[in-house]
């Protein structure tokens, strides 16, 4: 038997150094890099570096031998080799100034086909969606680039086109869920086919040059090259899923024929598409609004017992409401506000939007339109203001989406100092201690009641048990929410939507007629607020729902026991761990709440005593004065 040699088996054969891979593939380093990025073959870290590197302990870039062998069969390797030939031949033509031949060669530049690679890397469509985060962020970034060294202009144009197409899909499918303005850029999160897709759009500022020390532009450009193809195919599939024509087109009735449009139809269309303000051509001629995904709901309704299912149901209802958040609202975007993110948000939640026609093409109505309900402004003051609309800052739109309801606009008025913009990616319902201030930020209905109750208590100066009030408030809030849900459901299943909308419209009209003077409007607002307060007060006064705490606790304990029994023996440790974690968290929360309560109590006491002393002093002073008077 032959004696086995060192490094002929095991880890040494599993890995291959980059140099060896280059030699094996007969490619230059640049070509190899490109091939690897396109095919999704990345370097690996071995378990034992010295063994994998055949005894050498310097840190080399290693690949799996299997991966390299896989690359060996790739047809684009031949195209990469053709590039070399092309470069040589065209270089020769250029040198001898044979421009006829050069032109012929350039026309037949060997182009890489990546279709099969996309399919290979993402065997299913869902796989592609899962990897869309990076793709979108990079393409949105590249779409802002001018032509740079190593980044051709066509690439950035293509990126722009594809991203706009994607945004059209997001608008048409109403799949946007969360938005966030950070110092990095605008975060968007959409839910497409059950996958959460998050991307960042850079702020709209002039392009800042980038030092080449930090980033390898060539590498990024290759990534973008692949991602453009991938997003193209994804867009194709998404569009066809919505029955839309893929290279996006307008219904021909919408295009007005001007002299300008006749000149260059394609650019006109592409500009309008970029404006994001038009419905695109559909292939099936059926309005999408009618067909909503109710099937899930029905399925859920069949066995609506479990907690999870109830939660899911609630979520589905919330989303259904969210999708039509801005329905019936008409926005106008001022010229100083970044147009694109706002248009995406407003349009994907059913609102209508326009802007100054001189800012960008595609505006549908003027600033002077009386039916505009909201004007988005980002400057301290405005000279001419219409009475019929709210002048709000852009953050209102973002916060409304994140909290999935229309917030009161008074905090976002023109020139007002804005409330903090919270991140929607932090779960507000996490089971840790959340201070009441933050809670109020997430649920504005809480804050008002909270403030009011404080005021009342101060006015009355009656020592009330705060815990009870807080609890009650919470309960009330829950009740309110339940009531809202009920009404929403009733609207959905009981009465048709159109009636409600009509009512709303009628209300709007009524308001519009009434609003002739500013003062009157203010009065109206005051009365409205009063009415709202009354409503809340009436809800507070009801004390029908008294919960038997002991029974509740007992039921909870029973359920917990049942749960514990249901756990499989192999998961018992995990279950115990979870329970322990939960308990510790609860304890922590309880401690913090207690601490807070004590602090609140102390401050209240201090206030009260201060007030009492002040009163005493005042009384004393009055007495002294009276005495003086008597004297």
């Amino acid at each position: 038997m032959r004696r086995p040699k060192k490094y002929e088996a095991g880890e040494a054969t599993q890995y291959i150094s980059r140099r060896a891979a280059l030699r094996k593939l007969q490619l230059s380093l640049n070509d190899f890099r490109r091939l690897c990025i396109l095919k999704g073959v990345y370097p690996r870290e071995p378990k034992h570096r010295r063994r994998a590197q055949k005894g050498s302990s310097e840190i080399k870039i290693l690949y799996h031998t299997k991966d390299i062998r896989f690359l060996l069969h790739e047809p684009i390797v031949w195209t990469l080799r053709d590039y070399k030939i092309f470069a040589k031949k065209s270089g020769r033509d250029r040198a001898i100034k044979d421009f006829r031949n050069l032109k012929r060669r350039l026309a037949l530049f060997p182009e890489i086909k990546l279709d099969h690679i996309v399919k290979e890397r993402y065997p299913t469509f869902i796989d592609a969606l899962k990897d869309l985060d990076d793709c979108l962020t990079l393409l949105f970034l590249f779409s802002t680039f001018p032509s740079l060294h190593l980044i051709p202009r066509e690439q950035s144009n293509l990126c722009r086109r594809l991203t706009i197409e994607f945004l059209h899909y997001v608008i048409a499918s109403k799949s946007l869920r969360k938005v966030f303005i950070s110092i990095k850029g605008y975060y968007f999160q959409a839910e497409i086919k059950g996958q959460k897709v998050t991307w960042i759009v850079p702020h709209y500022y002039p392009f800042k040059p980038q030092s080449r020390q930090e980033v390898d532009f060539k590498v990024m450009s290759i990534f973008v090259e692949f991602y453009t193809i991938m997003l193209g195919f994804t867009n194709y599939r998404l569009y066809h899923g919505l029955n839309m024509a893929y290279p996006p087109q307008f219904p021909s009735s919408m295009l007005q024929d001007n002299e300008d449009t006749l000149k260059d139809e394609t650019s006109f269309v592409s500009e309008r598409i970029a404006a994001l303000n038009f419905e695109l051509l559909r292939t099936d001629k059926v309005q999408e609004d009618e067909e909503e995904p109710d099937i899930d709901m029905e399925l859920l309704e069949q066995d609506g017992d479990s907690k999870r299912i109830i939660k899911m149901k609630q979520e589905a209802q919330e989303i259904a409401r969210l999708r039509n958040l801005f329905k019936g609202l008409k926005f106008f975007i001022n010229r100083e506000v970044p147009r694109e993110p706002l248009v995406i948000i407003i349009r994907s939640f059913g609102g209508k939007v326009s802007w100054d026609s001189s800012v960008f093409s595609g505006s549908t109505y003027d600033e002077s339109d009386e039916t505009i309900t909201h004007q988005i402004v980002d400057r301290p003051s405005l000279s001419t203001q219409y009475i019929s609309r709210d002048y709000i800052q852009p953050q209102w739109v973002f916060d409304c989406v994140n909290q999935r309801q229309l917030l009161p606009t008074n905090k976002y008025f023109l020139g007002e100092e804005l409330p903090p913009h919270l991140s929607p990616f932090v779960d507000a319902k996490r089971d840790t201690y959340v201070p009441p201030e933050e809670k109020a930020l997430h649920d504005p209905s809480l804050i008002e009641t909270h403030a009011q109750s404080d005021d009342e208590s101060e006015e009355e100066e009656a020592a009330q048990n705060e815990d009870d009030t807080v609890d009650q408030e919470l309960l009330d809030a829950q009740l309110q929410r339940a009531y809202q849900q009920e009404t929403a459901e009733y609207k959905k299943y009981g009465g048709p939507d159109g009636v409600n909308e009509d009512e709303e419209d009628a209300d709007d009209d009524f308001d519009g007629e009434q609003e002739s003077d500013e003062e009157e409007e203010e009065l109206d607002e005051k009365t409205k607020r009063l009415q709202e307060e009354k409503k809340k007060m009436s809800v507070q006064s009801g004390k029908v729902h008294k919960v038997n705490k002991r029974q509740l606790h007992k039921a909870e304990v029973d359920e917990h026991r049942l749960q514990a029994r249901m756990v499989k023996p192999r998961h018992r440790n995990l279950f115990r761990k979870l329970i322990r974690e939960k308990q510790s968290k609860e304890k922590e929360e309880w401690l913090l709440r207690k601490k807070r309560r004590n602090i609140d109590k102390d401050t209240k006491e201090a206030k009260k005593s201060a007030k009492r002393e002040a009163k005493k002093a005042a009384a004393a002073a009055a007495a002294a004065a009276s005495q003086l008077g008597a004297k």
Partner: protein
Amino acid sequence: MAAQEPATKRKRISKKNKAAWRKIDIQDVEQFLEDQRQEERIGTFTDKQDEDLFVVDASPLKTAPSQLTIKQKRKLNALKPMRSHQALENTSKVQDPIVKRNHVRQKKSGRNIEMEVCNPTKPRHRQANTDRGLYYEKLDKELAMRESGKKLPKIDKDIWQEEDFRDKIPGLKDEKGWISRDLALHVAGNIGRKVVKTHASLHHKTTKAKKFEAPHPGMSYNPSLKAHQELLAEVVEREQSIIKKEQHLKRVTTTMFSKVTPEERDKRRLDEMSEGIKEDGEPESEDEVDPKSADNSYSTVNAPVENKKKSKAARNKELKQKKLQRQHEAKKALKKQTADLIRIKSIRAEVQEEAEELKDLKKRRKAAAERKKYETKRLGRHKFEEPDLDVNMPEDLAGNLRNVKTESNLLTDRFKLLQKRNMLPTTVAVKRKRAKVKRFPRSSHKEPGVSFQELRDRRKAAAAAAKANSDTIKI
């Protein structure tokens, strides 16, 4: 001439030898022949047409200067035959004496493409012609596309549609189930449409870390105070750890060594290097002190090694001792065993403890391995370092969208993310070092010194000043 000829008498010269023959004047004959040849070369006037000889000058005398540009002239010149080839041209009018020449066909090396294209004789010529046709068809299409300005990637199909490779190849689709999938795969491979299978390791993820990391709430353009403070605290902590590390490195390297002045350093070096070399004054005295050592050729400090032989008795004794020792040890072990029987309980406890420790170690190792799955791998020479957190300083927080101060560079951010997810090896851009160029003035170059004229001017100026001074003194 005709009048002269009869007057001159013909000279009679002997033609006895060959040399004498040359004395005949044959100039007239030669002249005649020359004329005839010239006539043959350029033709006679009688042969030529009037048009060739004369031109009717119909244009006015003053011709307009030609309006041709240089480029046009060049083009016209290019049409003319080259000057260098003029010498090769046959301008003679002499007719070829050989009426019919045999045409010599030169043997061509390689193929005659023109002939193959024009009248193909072999199947391969025909094949080549069809290929060429296809090529030019494609070329024309490409050129037309280029001119129309549409050069976009072709996306006109749903690549994720479920499809069977057998559908595309006629004959492989079988409703009756006669052709197995393996056979179909084999056939597809052999007719040039190989079905490529991707191996699972290609889709294997190298890190367990989440793809999308939610931004810190303090990174909002208008953050809540708490979130912003938290983020700031995080940044400060990170910065402090970096400073700490730096300080540690400084302490361990730079400050660990004492510093000396350059003079001191040089002196020390000199001392060190000259250690052991005797100085000028002393060596003689040393030599004088130990004259014997100079006589002895070699001596060391160590004592000389002796080869001591052990005696047989000593060896025996040693062996005996060893044996005894062994016996003693065995006895001791036996004794210990019996003793251990009593403390079996404590031994068990010890063993258990050891096992517990081992278990603990195993657990920790497992946890470490699990933790490592979330970390960035070491792919290349450089270690990945987390980029700095993006944060707005409190004074930069504007509170409205108009005055947002953007902090991050999204491109760098993406690049780092790719590195973090093990998709790119961490690299450091290398600055290309330029060779140092030694600069010196050329020997022929001279610094501009003071010229004679300048000196003269200066002298004159000085003189004038002196004169002026003297004038003022006079007054």
